[in-house]
């Protein structure tokens, strides 16, 4: 029994396990309640639609782990969709159009990073400002009407070609998440980013270039938002003002659900992606159950709260079951390694 309990605790203590369990439970629940939920085509269709969420969640998670926050991802995604579609409509070749879209994101990422790091401003405020700037530029670009219709089939094919039964957009998304995950956990630069997210003072003393690492994170986040925008433009072939507004909140919610701590340094990319998967699954599931789509923001809200509370509960549970050895050092011996009684 004790073994089982401590085993369970260790299992729950692994990062990402609570969110994986939650997702599995929700998916099974919907599959039982609504048979059409598990239908392969509908799943594929639906996930394809939500590709941008996954991409910006990955980028945002990296920024949060690096100790920042990027509220501009949604607006930048919308603007990049606009610029890339605009480029394509004006006859630029597909590669240039993609570069324009991704470049737009990179520019915003660079500005975010530079302003936050060099002027030491609050990341929340700066990215709130660039959110407004990007959203406003999209309004200017679309001039209050929609951008519609590039005839460039290659550009459109970016999102909708079929690769092994999946759309190219989905495959690219999976690649992005896997790549970013590997960078974070398997490379020196990923380790440095995580370390500097834990606290810039000790990271600086340890010789890490904290500012530059943070700028990298914002660059990645901006570039990914740009890339997500390109995929979105390619799928819809139309862009209007206000598009992707509010995505940043869904992405933040997804990252937090996945156990990424807003305090920085804690969490991972795939866990955040799982958080996004849980959110879009709930949305789709309730839609299929005939729940009023207007209620979705309530569901998101409840979901965030429950997710955070459960996550905390699981972590605390794991802690209480761990290390039950009483501290009973014989006289004259050194203090135990895990002493809290300073």
């Amino acid at each position, binding site marked *: 029994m004790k073994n089982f309990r401590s085993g369970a605790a260790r299992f729950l203590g692994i990062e990402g396990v609570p969110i994986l369990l939650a997702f599995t439970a929700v998916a099974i629940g919907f599959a039982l309640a609504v048979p059409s939920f598990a239908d392969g085509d509908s799943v594929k269709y639906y996930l394809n639609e939500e590709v941008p969420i996954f991409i910006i969640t990955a980028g945002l998670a990296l920024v949060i782990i690096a100790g920042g926050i990027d509220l501009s991802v949604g607006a930048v995604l919308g603007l990049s969709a606009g610029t890339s579609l605009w480029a394509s409509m004006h006859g630029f070749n597909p590669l240039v159009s993609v570069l324009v879209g991704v470049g737009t994101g990179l520019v915003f990422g660079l500005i975010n990073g530079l302003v936050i790091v060099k002027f030491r401003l609050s990341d929340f405020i700066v990215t709130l400002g660039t959110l407004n700037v990007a959203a406003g530029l999209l309004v200017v670009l679309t001039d209050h009407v929609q951008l519609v219709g590039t005839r460039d089939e290659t550009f459109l094919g970016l999102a909708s070609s079929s690769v092994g039964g999946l759309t190219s957009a989905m495959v690219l998304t999976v690649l992005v998440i896997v790549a970013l995950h590997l960078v974070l*956990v*398997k*490379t*020196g*630069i990923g*380790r*440095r980013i*995580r*370390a500097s997210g*834990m*606290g810039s*003072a*000790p*990271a*600086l*003393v*340890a*010789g*890490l*270039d904290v500012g530059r690492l943070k700028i990298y994170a914002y660059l990645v986040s901006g570039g990914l938002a740009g890339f997500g925008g390109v995929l979105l433009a390619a799928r819809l072939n139309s862009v209007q003002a206000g598009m992707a507004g509010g995505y940043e909140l869904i992405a933040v919610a997804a990252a937090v659900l996945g156990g990424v701590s807003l305090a920085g*340094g*804690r969490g991972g990319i795939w866990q955040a992606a799982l958080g996004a998967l849980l959110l879009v699954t709930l949305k789709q599931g309730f839609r299929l159950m005939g729940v009023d789509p207007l209620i979705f923001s309530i569901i998101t809200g409840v979901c965030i709260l429950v997710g955070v509370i459960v996550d905390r509960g699981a972590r605390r549970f794991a*802690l*209480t079951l*761990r*290390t*039950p*050895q*009483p*501290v*009973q*050092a014989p*006289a*004259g*011996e*050194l*203090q*135990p*390694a*895990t*002493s*809290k*009684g*300073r």
Partner: protein
Amino acid sequence: MKAPSSVPVEAQRPAEAPHLRMTDIHKRFQGVQALNGVSLLVRGGEIHALLGGNGAGKSTLLNVLSGLVTPDSGRIELAGQEVSIGHPREAQALGISTIHQELSTVPDLTVLENIFLGREEALTGKGSLFVNRRQIARRIQDLAGEFGITKSELWRPVGDFGALKKRVIEIVKALAVPPKVLILDEPTSGLEEHEKTLLFEHMRSLQRRGVALIWVTHHLDEVFGLADVVTVMRDGRTIARTETAELTPRELAVQMFGGDATELMEAADAVPARRRVDGDDAHPRLRALNLSRHGVLRDISFDVERGEILGIAGLAGAGRTELVRALMGLDKLHSGRIEIDGKPRRIGHPKVAYKAGLAMVPEDRKQLGILPDLSVAENISVSELGSVTAGGVLRSRRERALADSYIKSLGIKTPGPAEPIRNLSGGNQQKAIIARCLNTEPSILIFDEPTQGIDIHAKAEVHRLIRDVAEKGTSVIVIASEFAELISLCDRVVVMNRGALVGEIRDIPHRVATDGYDAVKHAIIDKASRADR
């Protein structure tokens, strides 16, 4: 063990009932028994020293008393009546005032607001909703003035001041409403000599008025001049309660650390003076020339040779930490040159400093040293990830092996290299930070207060480590507030005062017993504290 009292104190002074009595206090944190049946008995008008190594449970006990921690079981009596203290507010209402070890001033509030915060009733009158700052200022300005806080300083935000002043503010805050029980958790750390003296005088004056003072300190010599009674804690238990008059320093050390500790201390003291490792060319390892930083460092020049341990002495605020921070590229230098092995180096960022062969074990381990969520292994490798990566990709086996070798060679006590470093004790965290620096293979290693807040065992080990490092040819710079520590460790000591180098002391006698010891100590104190510059 349950109600330890090596001397029947109550029989000697029957007239005075104990003012504070804590009996059989237990507290468990997440599987760690921090307090395991602690008892404490303090009289009014008594300075009661509370001693013990790291992790002995002193701070937890004080937190119970100041309302920050609720005990699992046990009984607290104040003036004969049982009380329960669920919040600092209730502690204050009972007349228990605390000067915490960690600075706990509020930076955005003015000095005045900090002083009256939480004591509005006592300072403005009961039930008054509105606060009259000027009136409070009038009431406390004399007390503040005694501690060198001017009237205009009362109106400035605490964030403007350094650590030293912040501690003084906390002391004034604790004294502003005269307490019945005053808890002082290492109150002298970071204070200058005259402020220590002033604080001790205040402690005596409170004692005369019948206040019960509970005083935690690591400085055994201070205990014997001031405390009436000493309670020693170890591993969450009270070991003994003894009148100071009937105690020798040696007995006290035995109580604190068990039988073998004193021998260890003496062994650490008895290390013979080391020879300096001679270099093969004319340049010193590090040469600092005319370093200046506005308002902090003034025209500082010094050399450090290969294998030399250079001590930097000085009082708090003399600019010692600022000097090494500037060397490490953490703070900007406004003028001056740094040469390493004869080559001029421009160090604008810590990253550059590490590349140039510098490394630093910082002061304030919790805030500046450890990366709390990383494992021990990750904390060790983080400054030189090149040692565990291939083509930018981490090799976890190599990282583990690296950590294991340091855990073994430095004697880091940890369940394993994958343990988050925050779970380690202070001394072992410090060793891991030292391992991190060693892993960068530095030619110059800086230690800023390397033994602050770690117990005597760990201290001796850290000292041995520093000597070993220097023995192998690395140049070492050590900052320490305890002059004794500098004298026993260093080949040469330079003294700082108000941002400038004011003296140098060579030929240091390494044993406390040596005749020249006191002379050197006084020479340092004299240079460091002279005000007429």
